[in-house]
């Protein structure tokens, strides 16, 4: 690191402690929610487990909201940790975000387990207000309030990140590399990919949170005063804009772990190039505009939006994915890389990200969507994307930082068990979708139940693999010297 880089970087003593908290809490919650997921799949199978539709939908809401929130926090930890190498971030704000998020989690979990709220994590208007007596207005208000608090928590840390980026790079556009992309400045090979990715995440997530701040308050107002009825389609658009952007941003945050850690293994630098910058600019714009592909079933949507959703589904994500996957493979090829838990998980994440997009592209076609949208094909896509894309990035990051990736045989076997279990789980969803098994059904037809059993079994394997990787990390985490990453490569 040069002297000027050190001047801007966050001091090492401030970088590590809160990241440990994020990772520790994140890994524990991930494992717990995996158990909930396996239980749901078992309830859809032929096993004797019967939880009843009411509990099923509560668990579905808990699993969805919990996984999205935890994915957001874990990806934020990756993003914050690596961005803090280049800009001076405020550790107190980062901690404040965690504390506010935990309060939000208590509100969300309380509304589900005590208040029996079960409208799904998408809180699709007007469902929270039309519970047919299954949950109270207070439970719905607490759930929506929890999501609002989570949004505020993320906004705080994003503002801090944005200000720190502007202080060092002059503007978000410069951090995104636009002057280099458009030839106004020469390509600077030392410009960190982590900063480019952070700038993209900032732009899209602040826009998403702004939409969330509106739609959540409108939902609250409708709950308090039902005659105030906003347009349902506009509300759905805002909800999906918020939700789509938020969950997409998790993978664009977490991929920073690949950019930062894989080069240390391969002993080759990951430098920015014009295609790399162009890909990140393209994905910044497309992530904001692609969300109508969630609303292809809504006949009242303007046709141009549905067509835009379909076309952008083909292209959104692919530029960055191609650039990242291709560069990643080139980086690894004949590099004499050391295969341990961390490096295996990071390369696995590229596979998961690449393959996980394919079902989404297929489902993003209007005619296919009319048949596939309400089947388990869609959970197949997002489980592939998150379970084999995002989570290995987070686990690889945690493994590298806590144990330098050297988790021995247990870590390597754990990564393998995880990969096999997760692939099997995703295939069980995708095959179910291909066989037209509907999603969000608490109880399945007898002929579908074997797929539920396969799903539950593979969910159990994923949980075992996760624990094999995560438990040693959790044991080492309190004493781990996370900041050693820069020297250990």
């Amino acid at each position, binding site marked *: 690191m040069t002297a000027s880089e050190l001047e801007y970087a966050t001091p090492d003593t401030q970088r590590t402690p809160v990241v440990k908290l994020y990772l520790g809490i994140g890994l524990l919650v991930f494992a717990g929610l995996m158990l909930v997921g396996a239980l749901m799949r078992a309830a859809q199978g032929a096993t004797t487990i019967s939880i009843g539709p009411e509990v099923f939908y509560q668990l579905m809401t808990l699993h969805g909201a919990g996984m999205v929130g935890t994915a957001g926090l874990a990806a934020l930890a990756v993003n914050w940790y690596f961005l803090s190498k280049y800009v001076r971030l405020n550790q107190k704000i980062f901690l404040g975000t965690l504390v506010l998020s935990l309060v939000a989690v208590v509100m969300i979990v309380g509304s589900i387990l005590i208040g029996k709220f079960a409208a799904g994590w998408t809180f699709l208007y007007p469902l929270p207000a039309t519970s047919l007596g299954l949950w109270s207005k207070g439970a719905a208000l607490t759930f929506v309030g929890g999501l609002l608090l989570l949004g505020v928590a993320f906004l705080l840390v994003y503002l801090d990140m944005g*200000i720190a980026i502007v202080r060092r790079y002059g503007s978000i556009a410069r951090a995104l590399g636009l002057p280099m992309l458009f030839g106004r400045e020469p390509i600077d090979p030392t410009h960190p990919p982590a900063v480019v990715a952070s700038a993209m995440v900032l732009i899209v997530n602040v826009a998403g949170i702004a939409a969330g701040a509106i739609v959540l308050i409108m939902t609250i107002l409708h709950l308090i005063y039902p005659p105030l009825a906003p347009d349902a389609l506009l509300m759905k658009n805002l909800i999906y804009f918020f939700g789509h952007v938020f969950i997409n941003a998790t993978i664009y945050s977490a991929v920073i772990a690949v950019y930062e850690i894989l080069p240390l293994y391969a002993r080759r630098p990951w430098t920015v190039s014009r295609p790399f910058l162009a890909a990140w600019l393209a994905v910044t714009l497309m992530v904001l505009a692609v969300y109508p592909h969630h609303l292809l079933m809504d006949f009242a949507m303007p046709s141009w939006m549905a067509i835009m959703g379909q076309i952008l589904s083909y292209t959104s994500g692919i530029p960055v994915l191609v650039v990242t996957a291709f560069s990643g493979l080139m980086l690894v090829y004949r590099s004499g890389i050391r295969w341990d838990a961390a490096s295996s998980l990071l390369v696995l994440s590229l596979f998961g990200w690449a393959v996980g997009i394919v079902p989404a592209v297929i489902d993003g076609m209007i005619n296919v969507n009319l048949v596939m949208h309400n089947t388990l094909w869609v959970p197949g896509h997002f489980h592939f994307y998150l379970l084999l894309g995002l989570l290995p990035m987070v686990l690889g990051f945690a493994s590298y930082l806590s144990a330098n990736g050297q988790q021995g045989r247990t870590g390597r076997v754990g990564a393998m068990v995880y990969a096999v279990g997760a692939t099997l789980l995703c295939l069980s969803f995708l095959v179910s979708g291909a066989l037209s098994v509907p999603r969000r059904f608490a109880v399945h037809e007898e002929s579908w139940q074997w797929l539920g059993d396969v799903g539950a079994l593979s969910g159990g394997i994923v949980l075992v693999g996760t624990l094999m990787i995560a438990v040693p990390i959790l044991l080492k985490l309190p004493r781990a010297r996370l900041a050693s990453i820069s020297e250990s490569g």
Partner: protein
Amino acid sequence: MPAERWRQWPLALTLAFCVAGLIPVTARLFEASMQAHLLVQMPLLAFCGGYWVSRSERLQAWLERADPSGGVALVLGSGWLIYWMLPLNLDLATFDPSVRLLKVLTVPVLLGATLTWSWRQLGPVGRGVMLMEGWAILVRLGWIYLISPVQLCSNYLIGDQQRTGSLLLGLALISAALAAIWGVFGPFRKTDRCQPE
């Protein structure tokens, strides 16, 4: 000294708007439509209070002692903003002289001055949250005025209410576009820090 004379303007401006808000002829001009009331008079009154705080060194010195962090001012200002966002209070101010007096006297002080002081004292993150929340309030309020099934004020008809809603949404749209340009390409000044390392 001309400069000294300029220093007295904020106070004079505030007093002028307050008096104008109380004299029936001029008050009627501001209160004739919901748009003028909510989008012209209220911001003008708040602006006067804010301008006063930013110019008066004596007031700043007092506030520095009374509320150094700006936290109390933020709570007071936000609370008073919510109070005046309720259509009932806006409505009352058009025909109840005591509520009109309350508005004219307190909006500059308890809304404009307090929010300006807290803005000055907050860090950049706090300011960002204030801006974002302010923008979200514009959208929510505009949306509510636009879709409300009932006439919210007895003195302003539902058409007036819906026009106000549309204007608030338009304002939010323009400010979002400007904020996006400023947020991505700003702060539009060359510093030594924005040179490549």
